[in-house]
């Protein structure tokens, strides 16, 4: 598939699409491997497995973008990865080919799913055994309940004679065990018959043999799930409280995101345009500008920053200034960008500094104007020029061009 025909959306939207589809696929994975187990979603292990499954498409989307197989602003790629990452990993997708041998990728996930299943098996057994004991104790507490239960089971069981024989066998032990113990054994034997009937719990509840609270406990799968539900409610309440208490700086988030995008080497032209436009707006916002200008200028010093990105960043800075925004401290911040490792970036920054001086109507400094960073990469000379530019701009008062 040619991804160039895909709508080009902001990367955050594409990652959102991948995550949303990932939620659906993860839930399907869990359901396929563990689905049908009562109380599955009450276990922390299930959620951990779910989050691991969810992390795969997001991680894969990032990885495929990094390797150049797709771009992370392609909606079609997002849909393909989010909805079909299992096929991509197993090498069955003809459109996107994951590099390397990923055939064993699922092994740890299956092992973890096995662990979750084992935990669930043990917890289910423990919870239901506890519930069984409570129900048997309740029934065995009185002769009347035991008698009523016996009558009900005799009316339902196919082989009445076998049931009677078993109960008679227990009765025969009365001399050794005592009345209470015999009643308990009989209740347990009858209870074993009840749980083997379809909807047996409902039957014994409706006949008034067990109270509603024991029936509700059965419906909830025992007290284990109630405890997890309580923990879940507390956790959600805690998260809600934390979300209300912590004030996230949305300006900082957007700035960090836009700086990531503009500095990223594998982006589309449309994405570069978006990043530039948003950064210009941020550098014009009086509240965001001081930090944004400093951070954008710092990006120019990042090792490995492609020269075309340096151009884009400098263009955004000059656009923000030309548009009459606040853009404070642009020259002092840019002076520090002369420390960039890439001499081409250094040369461009130097040119911009000269341009800014010209737009301010400042008197040119011959020593600085004659310097060509491309020809001279000596550390001492570079520091000398940086100090020279710093001193120069500390004497100037540059206003936005009119």
């Amino acid at each position, binding site marked *: 598939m040619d991804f160039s025909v895909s709508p080009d959306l902001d990367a955050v939207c594409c990652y959102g699409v991948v995550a949303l589809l990932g939620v659906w696929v993860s839930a399907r994975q869990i359901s396929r491997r563990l689905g049908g*187990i009562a109380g599955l979603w009450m276990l922390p292990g299930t959620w951990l497995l779910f989050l691991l499954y969810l992390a795969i498409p997001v991680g894969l989307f990032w990885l495929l973008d990094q390797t150049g197989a797709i771009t992370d602003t392609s909606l079609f790629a997002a849909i393909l990865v989010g909805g079909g990452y299992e096929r991509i990993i197993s090498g069955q997708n003809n459109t996107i080919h994951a590099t390397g041998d990923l055939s064993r990728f699922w092994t740890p996930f299956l092992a973890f799913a096995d662990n979750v299943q084992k935990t669930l098996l043990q917890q*289910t057994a423990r919870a239901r055994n506890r519930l069984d004991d409570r129900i048997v104790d309740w029934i065995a507490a009185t002769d009347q309940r035991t008698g009523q239960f016996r009558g009900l089971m005799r009316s339902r069981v196919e082989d009445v004679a076998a049931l009677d024989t078993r109960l008679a066998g227990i009765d025969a032990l009365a001399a050794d065990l005592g009345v209470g113990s015999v009643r308990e054994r009989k209740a347990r034997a009858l209870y074993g018959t009840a*749980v083997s009937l379809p909807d047996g719990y409902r039957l014994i509840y409706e006949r008034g043999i067990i109270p509603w609270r024991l029936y509700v406990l059965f419906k909830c799968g025992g007290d284990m799930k109630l405890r997890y539900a309580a923990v879940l409610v507390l956790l959600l309440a805690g998260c809600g409280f934390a979300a209300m208490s912590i004030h996230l700086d949305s300006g900082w988030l957007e700035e960090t995101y836009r700086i990531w995008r503009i500095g990223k080497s594998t982006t589309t032209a449309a994405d570069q345009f978006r990043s530039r436009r948003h950064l210009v707006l941020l550098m014009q916002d009086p509240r965001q500008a001081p930090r944004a200008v400093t951070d954008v200028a710092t990006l120019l010093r990042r090792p490995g920053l492609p020269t075309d990105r340096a151009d884009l960043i400098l263009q955004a800075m000059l656009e923000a200034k030309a548009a009459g925004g606040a853009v404070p401290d642009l020259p002092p911040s840019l002076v520090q960008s002369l420390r960039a490792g890439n001499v081409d970036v250094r040369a461009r920054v130097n040119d911009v500094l000269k341009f800014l001086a010209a737009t301010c109507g400042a008197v040119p400094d011959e020593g600085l104007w004659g310097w060509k960073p491309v020809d001279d990469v000596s550390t001492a000379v570079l520091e000398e020029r940086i100090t020279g530019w710093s001193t120069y701009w500390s004497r100037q008062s540059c206003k936005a061009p009119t």
Partner: protein
Amino acid sequence: MAINPTLTADAQRVLRAILDAKVVRGGELMWQSGFKTPQALATPVNELVSQNLIEVIGPVSPNELPFATFGIPPSSHEYLRSLLRRG
């Protein structure tokens, strides 16, 4: 786990019920796989347990079978389903 075991029809029925339910108690397994008594269920269950095809928590004696809990690790699902398809 046994490799390519031959299963009786009853054992296949029980295995299919456990595979569908993922985790199931003996009592429910009885009526889900169509057995009328725990004694009848005990035979195929023991066949599956002896071949290490299912996991069980609790005793599998006929009297205690309704209270035992059965399950199958997710990593074995595909293999066991193929076993059932093969018949």
